[in-house]
């Protein structure tokens, strides 16, 4: 089965975070990913759709 609302994560071992950014900035990455996830939950989709996170640390 394929997921319909997919948020592009950072990396497999830390899908919602980025340990390579400065430690004080890392929570900001997670918050950006989580915020995007909440937003995507409010969006209609027709089928599997990938949404990216607009935050430099989340790439």
């Amino acid at each position: 089965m394929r997921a319909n609302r997919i948020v592009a994560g950072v990396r497999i071992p830390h899908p919602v975070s980025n340990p390579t950014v400065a430690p004080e900035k890392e929570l900001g990455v997670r918050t950006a990913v989580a915020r995007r996830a909440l937003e995507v939950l409010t969006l209609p989709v027709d089928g599997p759709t990938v949404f990216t996170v607009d935050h430099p640390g989340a790439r």
Partner: protein
Amino acid sequence: MRDDVSPNETARSLRTPIRVVHYLNQFFGGIGGEEHADRAVEVREGVVGPGRALDAEWRGAAVIVATIIAGDNHVATWPAEAERAIRSALEAYRPDVLVAGPAFNAGRYGLGCCAACRVGTILGIPSITAMSPENPALAMHENRGLLVLPTTDTAIGMRAAVPALARLALKLGRREPIGSAADEGFLPRGLRRDVMHEQTGAERAIALLKRKLAGQPYRSEMGVEVFDGVAPAAPVRNMDAARIALVTTGGIVPRGNPDRLREYNSIAWRAYSIAGLSDLTPEAWEPIHGGYDATFARADPDRVVPVDALRALEREGAFGALDDRMYVMVGVGTAVGNARRFGTEIARDLRERGVDGVILTAT
């Protein structure tokens, strides 16, 4: 025939024909065309329509004792009722084997044939059908596992389909062991078994490539699966008041793994309380997943399940409330069937708890 069959049993089985119930739609059942597609299930004694061709193949070794006829629309629109009626008929006749179709590429007829075979299987009656590999009924998850012989798309293939169907139905009715899909000619039904080949995998791979390069017909040892989809849930309407839950396949568990969750190949999921927690600390939580580099998650489990980020957003008012439960399993190597079960069970729990939206983090 089985080697261990006694002479008496052999003689008896040769004397007594295998009893067959045949399933047809309204058209092949001789009732009529599309205008009769709403016909409810009815049962006729003996053979009808294409069943005669099967009887001719069997030459007395098997005989159709009854024919179930159902309108295509009826089965598609009232599946529960149709299946109940089919079940009654099969219970009344208790055949040695159920044969359905052939349905060719008729979608609703295919649905009906598959439904009949599912009912037969539940009753312990060996069941077989035949239809085009493209028949949409075969793409449905609940029809995985049925025994299906491939046919052409249209009834022009009836004459070609009947002998194979008759042969395999007779084997089933006699409770003889069935060979592989390749040997018996049926479509892969989602059941596979290990074997020892004559040649090594390398020899088979090179031989297969040479056939492909030469433009010769070739057979793959495994079919390509297409993962089905599910209709998307409606969007969360009021995020300000929404209850959001966290689910993860990343294997973040309380330190010490008290529920002994597996590092691979999950057979269970667990829900853990995050009530009152502002984040997941490495002292209290750890990654036990065996399939990714856990160094990062070990230092900070929020990197896999962002409890701290969600608490921050909760305080900010970005959503209503973070549910007290975090649902955890390990994804790697987990059977898809188990994963489906986990999803169904967790969804039930989430519904009961009034959860509006889920964030599932995967590794």
